[in-house]
């Protein structure tokens, strides 16, 4: 099969993903994601089912296209937006609101999504697959930094990012965005790598 080379969105938009361990400003272009929104503690039941539904949709859409001989692409890593205001430590975990997301090429459309939902329900997968949507997200200018370590120490990295933003004349506009580079089920928490991204506006 002579198919064109597989698309890797992270490599294609390298400038948005290569992140040092010190804060930098990035300008994000609008991007499409498969998303599922919910509320509850990370690792809780709702959260875990949502991750399963999101990945199920991402792979089913990709493989259906690939089987049809259309442009192949890599399924990107899991990302998440968190809606807890400025200080997450003040909100109980079961009230954390989040949107889990996987960056998806622009050529994926509503037809692809609906087909995949039908296929997955036919296979008796959890109904949450119906909640997985396509969404264009445009966050504009962000401060971004690589966080290495457990998720519950992210506030340290966020503090560094906010100090940097202030110095550059920006204020945080939220929501906080995380890109999970490591698999928390396998990687020791001290070595977890996460890109933290916070949208900002000029003060």
């Amino acid at each position: 099969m002579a198919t064109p080379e597989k698309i890797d969105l992270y490599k294609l938009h390298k400038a948005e993903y290569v992140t040092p361990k010190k804060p930098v400003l990035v300008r994000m272009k609008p991007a499409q994601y498969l998303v599922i929104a919910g509320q509850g503690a990370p690792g809780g039941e709702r959260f875990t089912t949502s991750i399963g539904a999101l990945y199920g949709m991402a792979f089913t859409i990709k493989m259906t296209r690939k089987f049809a001989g259309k442009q192949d692409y890599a399924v990107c890593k899991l990302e998440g937006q968190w809606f807890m205001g400025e200080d997450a430590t003040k909100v109980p975990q079961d009230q954390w609101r989040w949107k889990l997301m996987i960056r998806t090429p622009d050529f994926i459309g509503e037809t692809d999504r609906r087909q995949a939902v039908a296929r997955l329900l036919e296979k008796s997968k959890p109904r949450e697959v119906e909640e997985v949507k396509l969404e264009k997200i445009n966050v504009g200018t962000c401060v971004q930094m690589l966080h290495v370590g457990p998720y519950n120490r992210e506030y340290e990295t966020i503090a560094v990012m906010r100090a940097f933003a202030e110095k550059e004349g920006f204020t945080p506009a939220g929501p906080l965005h995380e890109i999970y580079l490591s698999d928390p089920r396998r990687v020791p928490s001290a070595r977890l790598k996460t890109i933290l991204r916070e949208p900002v506006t000029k003060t």
Partner: protein
Amino acid sequence: MHIQQHFDEPLALDELAALACLSPHHFHHVFTGMLGESLASHIRRLRLERATWRLKLSRTSVINIALEARYETHEAFSRAFRDSFGISPTQYRQREGVGAQIAAPSGVHYRHDATPRGFWTTRRGEKAMTVTVKRLKPMRVAFMRHIGPYNEVRETWDRLTMFLGKEGLVGGDAQFIGICHDDPAVTPPDKIRYDACLTVDERFRPQDEIGVQAIAGGDYAVMTHFGPYEKLSASYAKLLGEWLPRSGCNLRSTPCFEIYLNSPESTEPEDLITDIHAPLELTGGTDHGHA
């Protein structure tokens, strides 16, 4: 030791494995893990070491010594000899002293006058090796067989995940598993059998190229391999060659398998994580307090 006494016979894998009370599946990994070199290179090295004695202690022609050492031509023998000892067989014959050794991590060398006296098991690097014994339930998997070198299994995986993916069977809690039926140290690359597998429920039926098999439940020694798939064989050598002999456990004669915990598509090779599973003989009781 057996190898040195039966140097000149073609060494049958089944026979060696039986002597070591190991299944042929696992013999090579255990051998490599313990001696730090493959069986083939071990034999090649000892035959060359013996040739150094023959060159000094006999008047046999170089070509005959070459043939004894299982080289087909004088040239091939001279090249291998020079690579190992830095001089040609003829130059060596004219030199002082007798017998030479090629550096080997195990310390096993050819001895003209006696059989070797044991060996050191190797410890390459002092990286922590964590092995846990887990009792697994049987798993039902859809699979596609790959026959050929390990570095070409990607293509089989692409087809398997495409066929199952469009059916909505990839993602969620499906596990990616590779069953390794052969040992690359003994099976020629084009004959290696490898099954690319994805766990499925009882409703899945075999179709076209995709079969269904059960992976046996029971006890498994599990070691996590961090890094590129090309380096998996080093971890196998550690698990089967270093951990296993010290553990007192015995292997079952079913193949080892690997569970891939992240996707090579979106992960850098250094960050790949693979759990290697080696099947252990059931110990009978319910007590499984292995360290």
